[in-house]
């Protein structure tokens, strides 16, 4: 009996792994492909904010978005960073006051931080693990269709979790990474990881010399 189960496992496991590998390759390929169908309804957006200039740049992007296409919007910021969510709240409030539809289409959430500014790389591993678990919980709850991020440490676990859900077939999201204007010569750690692992569907940089160094990135001018 036990032997049979073992034999079955021996047959099934490689097949499963092979299927997963095929699916993984497919998701990698499919992620970079533009959508051919026009979305019929608003897309659920996950917008990652972060202190140190990230929020200001991200709110610039949000301001330029067509709000009816990108709705509802879920803003996420680090637990230790209340200023960022406040800025987003002020902006969403101003939308409501300027006569947009008064539906509850903005949500605000906080996430454990994977790395504080100045934290050593060794302790970062543990905190990143915790942040990843929390990120998975958030991504499963939000089920985003579009993810916007521009480099705060919190964006990496969120993007990885969204990618894992894509591979497992539990939800599809397009991940857009817009590198911060502060990065002129090299990418940030989050940016580099998302670029090298090909997790970001589209990768934008704000300086032409960065685009030359990372050819899969797009240069689309400065945000500010």
């Amino acid at each position, binding site marked *: 009996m036990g032997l049979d189960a073992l034999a079955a496992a021996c047959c099934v496991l490689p097949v499963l792994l092979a299927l997963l590998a095929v699916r993984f390759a497919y998701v990698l390929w499919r992620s970079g492909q533009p959508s051919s169908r026009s*979305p019929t309804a608003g897309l659920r957006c996950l917008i990652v904010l972060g202190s140190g200039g990230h929020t200001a*740049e991200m709110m610039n992007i949000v301001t330029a978005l*067509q709000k009816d296409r990108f709705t509802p919007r879920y803003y996420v910021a680090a637990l230790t960073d209340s200023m960022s969510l406040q800025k987003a709240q002020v902006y969403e409030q101003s939308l409501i006051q300027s006569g947009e539809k008064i539906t509850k289409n903005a949500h605000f959430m906080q996430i454990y931080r994977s790395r504080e500014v100045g934290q050593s790389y060794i302790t970062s591993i543990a905190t990143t693990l915790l942040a990843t678990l929390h990120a998975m919980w958030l991504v499963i709850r939000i089920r985003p269709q579009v993810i916007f991020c521009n480099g705060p440490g919190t964006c990496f676990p969120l993007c990885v979790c969204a990618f894992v859900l894509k591979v497992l077939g539990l939800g599809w999201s397009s991940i857009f990474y817009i590198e911060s204007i502060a990065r002129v010569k*090299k990418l940030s750690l989050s940016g580099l990881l998302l670029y090298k692992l090909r997790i970001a569907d589209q990768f*934008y940089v704000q300086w032409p010399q960065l685009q030359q160094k990372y050819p899969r990135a797009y240069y689309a001018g400065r945000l*500010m």
Partner: protein
Amino acid sequence: MRRRVLGFQCMFPNLGRASPRRRIPLGTITILQWPTEVILLKNLVRTGEEMGSRERRVVFVTVGTTCFDALVKAVDSDEVKEALLHKGYTDLLIQMGRGTYMPSKVSVNSTLQVDYFTFSPSIADYIREASLVISHAGSGSILETLRLGKPLIVVVNEDLMDNHQSELAEELANRKHLFCARPQTLQETVEAMELNNLLPYMPGDAKQVVTLISKFLGFPVD
């Protein structure tokens, strides 16, 4: 109207100096109530030798939300204050953030008026009032100052672990939008700077990125 306030300020430099917001209404009320006295005061100031008929030219130093004592110490040094005075600046206002170093409010020759505070929700107001901004290398402070069209010296904090901050400052310095310095080279930078050599900065916008994103998602381009 404003000139009179300035003249009045020269006579009593400590009046209402705590914040620029308080200063203006104070002077205005004075003028409304005793116009002749103020004009007399102004004439008195005009005749004074060292006070002259000068305008206030404020140097605003900002470190954002960071702790950057090296910069505060640098601008508080006699050499830098001397250099600023030589360039015709009259006031030094320091936003010192989380730093613990307290600048001295009285300078050596007491002609450069020094004042400081820790945080303010409206840094932009101070930038607008300034003739020169000396800032830390945070992208927010840099771009805000450039957007308001003020001459800017960015001082890079060399104590940060992951020092990517200098990248933006150096790139914008290469493009002649600002001057880039280190705390220890601030004096030379102030002495050597030619404000006429600076080029205005054209702010970018997010439209291009948003168009690309919409296109990728399959939305019709409008």
